[in-house]
């Protein structure tokens, strides 16, 4: 049986006395686009940092394609690509150099590499500035460059933290179409977002967290039932988070 692309088991993270995440259990099925929703400070970024090895869990496990990231980080990290919320990338490299840097870092095949780099730079509209220092790029351009490296690698799992922030409407539309296409090809996408319309449009499963706890997880129709029949995702989200806050 193929292991689940992402499985979080009892994931807990404490910073001193503060519990940022408490016993989070999420399992993502193959080919799904899973959206992680929650109010500010709910623990979305912490979850993504734990999933990608940027933070170490206080307890619990993260399995990436069946590999425990704590036991075998190198193999687990080969399986996914991360797009963080703030696109910090080496400002003293050019976009062209950064693409090759990533290609070398992930040991990508050299066959036709240059053509693939050009193709991705063109797709994300950065080919014209490929030899400029990244320092001169805007937030959106950096975000697009990171997405271009993700597409260059073509990993099994893509983990994104607020991927639409900083993108213009045209780029945002293009990225959404790419995500849908990737999902159809059996790739797995896990994203955190504040934008409920993006989640409605893209995600096949939604996990809602509040104050570091998972309060709902399921498909749109399953969440509709949990919320007591609310129709729009906005109403469902507000109902569930308010109920969780009240309890």
């Amino acid at each position, binding site marked *: 049986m193929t292991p689940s692309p992402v499985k979080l088991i009892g994931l807990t993270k404490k910073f001193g006395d503060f519990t940022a995440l408490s016993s989070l259990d999420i399992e993502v099925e193959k080919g799904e686009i899973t959206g992680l929703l929650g109010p500010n400070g709910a623990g979305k970024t912490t979850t993504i*940092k734990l999933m*990608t*090895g*940027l*933070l*170490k869990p206080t307890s619990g496990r993260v399995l990436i394609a069946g590999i425990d990231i704590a036991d075998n*980080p*190198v*193999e687990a*990290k*080969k399986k996914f690509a*991360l797009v*963080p919320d*703030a696109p*910090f*990338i*080496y400002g*003293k*490299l*050019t976009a*062209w*150099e950064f693409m*090759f*840097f*990533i*290609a*070398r*870092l*992930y040991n990508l095949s050299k066959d036709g590499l240059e053509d693939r780099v050009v193709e991705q730079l063109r797709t994300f509209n950065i080919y014209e500035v490929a*030899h*400029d*220092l990244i*320092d*001169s790029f805007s937030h959106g351009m950096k975000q697009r460059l990171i997405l271009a490296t993700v597409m260059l690698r073509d990993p099994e799992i893509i983990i994104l933290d607020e991927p639409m922030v900083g993108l213009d409407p045209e780029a945002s539309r293009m990225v959404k179409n790419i995500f849908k296409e990737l999902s159809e090809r059996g790739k797995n996408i896990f994203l955190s977002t504040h934008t409920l319309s993006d989640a409605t449009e893209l995600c096949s499963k939604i996990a809602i967290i509040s104050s570091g706890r998972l309060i709902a997880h399921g498909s749109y129709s399953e969440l509709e039932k949990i919320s007591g029949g609310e129709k729009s995702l906005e109403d469902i989200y507000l109902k569930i988070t308010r109920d969780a806050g009240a309890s």
Partner: protein
Amino acid sequence: MRERLKSFFLYLAFWLTRLRQSFSIFKKNKGKFAVSISLAFLFMALAGGGIFQVIRYVKEVPIVGNSLVIRLTGIIFITILLLLTYSSVITAFSTLFFAEDNEFIFVSPFHPGGVILGKLIQTSFYASWMSLLVLFPFIVAMGYIYKFPIYSYGVFTLATIFFFLTVAAASMSGVTLLVRIFPARKMRDFLIVGLVIGGTLLYIFFRILNIEQVLRPGQQILAAGYLSLFALPKTPYLPSYWMTKLVASFFSPGAGWMMSFFMLFLFALVFSAVYYFIAIKYFYDGWEKVKSQERKRYLPKGSFPRNPVLAKDFRTFVRDTGQWTQALIILALIVIYIVNIYKMPLDVPYLHYLVAYLNIGMIGFVLSSVGLRFTFSSISLEGRCFWILLSSPLNLRKLFRLKFMENFVPMEILGLTLVLGSNYILKPPLALNIVSTLVVAFMGLTLSLMGASMGCIYPRFDAAAPTEIETSWGGVLYMLASFFYILFLLIAIAVWARADFLSIVRGYGPDKVFVFIPALVIIVLNVSVALISYKRGIRALEEIEFQV
């Protein structure tokens, strides 16, 4: 006017809040605060002691003692003026044109006049606080020797503030005008390179004048002649002239301090006003120009090398002015070091031996300073981009070894150049030559490993500049650890060196105990420190959490 003042105080409050936040680490950890304060006091006590000895020595010169002290004071103030100008010019680029808060300031309801004056205080503070570490012990030593009246300390403090403001305002005016004509970044780089090279040449010139000859016992007359060599600019157009006059007035009978104090006040007022009018006219345009100068192209030269992290670090180093200008400063220090050894008065054979021995320790301290800047900082310099490496399948052991090797190789070359160069000049006996070379080679390895390791234990990914990493708590600990490591090493070598020197005098070889035991201690010390650093460093890197 009211709006200007309101914005001025608001800007100061905004800046002071950010400044206070950077010291908040001390609130949480009283131990760190105590160590930092103790180190600052220790430095000032040592500086004060040294200044006290020199002033007392010069004062003793018959007949012209006091005149020579005034001349010495002049030399101190003209030197501080030069250093302050250098520091203010470099700081002015950062506070005026590269400041991160500019965008926020321009969209907020701040009056530009208030911001401009606020930036003058800010620049003045950043550029001059270091000189207080010398000026404070200087005035205390002078006051103690000449029994200054109590009020003189208050007058001196206010005058010093005027002095700092004058230099900062003049530098900021110059920078604002230069940015109108030349590209800001290139101008700053050009000034840094020019000033480092100029400073080094100036130092070599002073060393050629053989200052050490006049500081020997019984050579006060020579000291008088030497000090008279300095044709100080006696122009009243420089604030350093009035600072010298002010200090002299505290111990010269009949001389009043009020004229000097008033002149310094006038200097500050006039230069601040000139700066204000220049900045109000050109600051915003200059900042806009800087923002639009960012685009820089590098066409690919061949494929990206096999080791991507090494290639990335190399390109970043070459393209980041902030990094290679520091390397240039280190290069200048090496030149100064070798010139110092060359100009040392070594007319007794014993001195050759002693200096060659002490040279090992000096090289150790040079290496630990270089290690602090480059090896210790190497992981932290990844900054907010560290997520790229940490989320990649890069083996963190390999990353540690790579960061270590990147710095170890240049550090080893630097250490060996210094020891072989200075031994060539000093011509110590063969045994000491070999021992010092081997020990320096060991030190390069151990200090690099210590730096890489402690850099992983105390990373500062949020640092805005390399200096923030160096002055962090981890940086202080690295310097302390290096100090004790070098001290232990010197003690072990001293046991052997003493026996070796006596054997040269007596004409037969040293007792084997004095050879084997120190050798064993040196090997055990290096191997254990290196191994512990290596293991601890890898563990820290594997456990690192990226919370930025």
